C-alpha cells in the first residue's frame, strides 16, 4: 500500500514554465511581479485558507514581496562617454545594458532568500528570466511551520471543583472502560479538551493531547520527519496501547491524532480486540490505518469513520478512495445485525466522498493550474469555495 503522494515532488527550479503569478495584485502592474511554483498548490491549499484571518495575513505578506524585486536590482549599467549621439549607437548601448542587467540577475547574484509569516516559511529569489520585463520574485518553495505553547503532549485527565478546572497530565494509565479522545493538532491542551468535549459529548472525557508539532512532523503530503516531542508522543501512545491491550477502551481520534495512532500501532504487537475506534477527519493514510486495525482485530463498529468538512482529510480520502473502499469491503470482518446496515452506509458515504467531484477536481487542478490564466491565489480561493 502506498502513502498518499503529493502531485509532484518539490525541488528548486528555474524553469519559468513551472511558475505562475501569485495573485492579481502581483502581476507587475505595480511593483515587481511575484510568481510561485505551480506544484506548491497542495501545500498551500491545505495550510492557508484565504477565508481566515491568518490566511489573509500570509497572502498579504507574500504579496508584499513585490516591493523587494525593485530594491534588489543591481546597477548593472554600462556608462560610456556620449561621443556618439546617433540613434543606432544608443540602441546598441541600450541592448548591451539590457543583456547585462539580465545576466547580472541570473548569475546572482540572486541567492535564495527566505522569510516566515504565520505558519508559512517562503523561499524565493529575485530573477529576470527570459520573457520577464522586470526583475521578478520567484517563490520556489514554501514550508509549513507550526507553533505551540509548550503544553506537553500526552494523556490528560480533567478534574473540576467549585473553584477551578484542572487539566492534569496524568500518570494513571489504566484506561479500562474509558472514552479517550486523541486530539487533532492544537496550541493548548485546554483547546484540545474543548474539542474533546464536543466530539465525545461527554463533560469529562480523557484526553490524549497532540500538540501542533505533531501536525508539522506527520503531514500527509510528505515523508514523516519526527522531532523529539513527536517521538515522545508516539512512544506514550504506544505504551498506553500496550498497557491496556487486554482492557476495554473506546478511542475517538481526530485529525492528525490518526497519524500519531498509525505510528504507534506499528510498534504494538498482538491484538486489540477490546479496543473500539472511531475517526473524525483522519489526517493520515486511512487505508493503511484500517488495514493495521483490521489485522489487530480492533472493533470498528457502526459509522466508525466520519468527515466534517476538513479539506486536508477529504483530499486524503479522495486520493486513496479505491484503497479505502477495498479496506472497507474486504479487510474488515463481516458485520452482523444493524452493523451491516451502518457498514454499508459507511462504504457508500466514503465511496461518495472519495469520488467527490470537487475534491478530485482540486487534486487535478493541483496538477494543471499552469496556463489556465488564473493566478495561484485565485485558483486556491475558488478551490476552497468549491469544498465549502
Amino acid at each position: 500500500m502506498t502513502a498518499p503522494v503529493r502531485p509532484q515532488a518539490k525541488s528548486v527550479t528555474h524553469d519559468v514554465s513551472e511558475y505562475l503569478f501569485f495573485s492579481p495584485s502581483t502581476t507587475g502592474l505595480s511593483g515587481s511581479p511575484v510568481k510561485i511554483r505551480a506544484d506548491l498548490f497542495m501545500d498551500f491549499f491545505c495550510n492557508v485558507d484565504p477565508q481566515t484571518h491568518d490566511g489573509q495575513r500570509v497572502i498579504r505578506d507574500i504579496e508584499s514581496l513585490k516591493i523587494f524585486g525593485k530594491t534588489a536590482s543591481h546597477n548593472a549599467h554600462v556608462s560610456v562617454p556620449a561621443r556618439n549621439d546617433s540613434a543606432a549607437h544608443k540602441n546598441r548601448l541600450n541592448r548591451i545594458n539590457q543583456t547585462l542587467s539580465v545576466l547580472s540577475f541570473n548569475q546572482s547574484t540572486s541567492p535564495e532568500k527566505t522569510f516566515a509569516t504565520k505558519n508559512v516559511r517562503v523561499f524565493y529569489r529575485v530573477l529576470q528570466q527570459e520573457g520577464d520585463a522586470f526583475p521578478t520574485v520567484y517563490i520556489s518553495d514554501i514550508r509549513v511551520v507550526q507553533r505551540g505553547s509548550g503544553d506537553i503532549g500526552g494523556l490528560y485527565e480533567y478534574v473540576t471543583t467549585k473553584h477551578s478546572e484542572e487539566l492534569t497530565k496524568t500518570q494513571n494509565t489504566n484506561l479500562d472502560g474509558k472514552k479517550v479522545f486523541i486530539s487533532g493538532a492544537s496550541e493548548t491542551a485546554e483547546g484540545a479538551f474543548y474539542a474533546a468535549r464536543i466530539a465525545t459529548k461527554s463533560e469529562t472525557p480523557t484526553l490524549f493531547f497532540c500538540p501542533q508539532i505533531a501536525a508539522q512532523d506527520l503531514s500527509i503530503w510528505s515523508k514523516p520527519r519526527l522531532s523529539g516531542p513527536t517521538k515522545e508522543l508516539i512512544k506514550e501512545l504506544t505504551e498506553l496501547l500496550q498497557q491496556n491491550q487486554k482492557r476495554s477502551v473506546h478511542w475517538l481520534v481526530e485529525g492528525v491524532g490518526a497519524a500519531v495512532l498509525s505510528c504507534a500501532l506499528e510498534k504494538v504487537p498482538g491484538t486489540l480486540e477490546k479496543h473500539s475506534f472511531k475517526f473524525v477527519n483522519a489526517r493520515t493514510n486511512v487505508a493503511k490505518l484500517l488495514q493495521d486495525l483490521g489485522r489487530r482485530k480492533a472493533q470498528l463498529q457502526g459509522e466508525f469513520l466520519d468527515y466534517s468538512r476538513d479539506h486536508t482529510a477529504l483530499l486524503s480520502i479522495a486520493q486513496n478512495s479505491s484503497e479505502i473502499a477495498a479496506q472497507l469491503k474486504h479487510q474488515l470482518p463481516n458485520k452482523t445485525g444493524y452493523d451491516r446496515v451502518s457498514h454499508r452506509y459507511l462504504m457508500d458515504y466514503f465511496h461518495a466522498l472519495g469520488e467527490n467531484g470537487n475534491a478530485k477536481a482540486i487534486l487535478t487542478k493541483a496538477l494543471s493550474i499552469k496556463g489556465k490564466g488564473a493566478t495561484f491565489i485565485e485558483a486556491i480561493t475558488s478551490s476552497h469555495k468549491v469544498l465549502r
Partner: protein
Amino acid sequence: MKFPDNLTGPQFAEGDLVSFIFDESELTVRAPKVPYNTNTINEICRERDLRNANTTSWEHFGTEGHCSKELLVQTWNYEDSISHDDIAHVVLKLVVVKNSDEETASCFSLNNLSFRNDLLSGLKEHHAMSPPKGRAYWPSEENNYFLKAIPRDLLDGLQAQFAKGGGQKYPVPSAFFPLGRQYTLRISFNFVSLHYYDDRVNPYSEELLQQFKLDAFDDFLSHIRIEYTPETIALIQKLKENQQ
C-alpha cells in the same frame, strides 16, 4: 487599553456586549471580537435567560450538589503587528457555578468576607500539591494565591491565580463574582506565549508577556457589570448591617 511594543489583538473595550439574566442578578460582559481562523473557539451560550434554570444538563461534580455551565469560551492570538507572528494564545472561559443548597441558604456569597474565606479555603484544599519550588511568581498558600479584591459598589469580586495542571510555566489568573445566593461567576484567562518550531524567537520577554497577561485580564474584568435585583440588594445591605 494600550498594548506594549508592537502587540496587537482584540480590544475588550470594542467587544460585543453580552448579557445573562439570573434569578438575582444580570451579568453583562464584553465578548472580544476574535479573528476567524479554522481552529478558533468562539462559543457564547445561546441561553441568556437563566432564571429558574433547569440544571439537569449542566456539568455536575462533587458530592455537595454543585454544577456548572459554560457561558463563554473564546480563543484568540495576540500578534506582532510588524512580523505578523503569533506571540501569545488565550483561552478565555466564563463559567457559572451553582452553589450547593447549604451554601445558598447560608448567603455566604452576599458577604465580601465569607465569599473570600470560601474561595481561599477552596484554593488551599485543591492547589496545595503545586508548590512554588522557589518561583516568586507562583501562587501558594503563603501568598494566598495572589488573592485580591475587585472593588465593586455592592459586592466585591475576587481575583486569584493558580496552576491549571498542564505543566505550564506560569499560573492562570482567575476571577470570581457572586451572582446572588445561588450562583457564582468563575472566569479563567489562560494566556500562554507561543513559539514557532523553527529559528524564530518570540521577541517578547516572558516578563513583559506575563505583565501584559495581568493587565489584559484586569482590562477584561473592568468591563464586567453585575446588577442585582432590588430584593438581593436589600438582602446584601441587611447582611452588611447585621455584620456591623
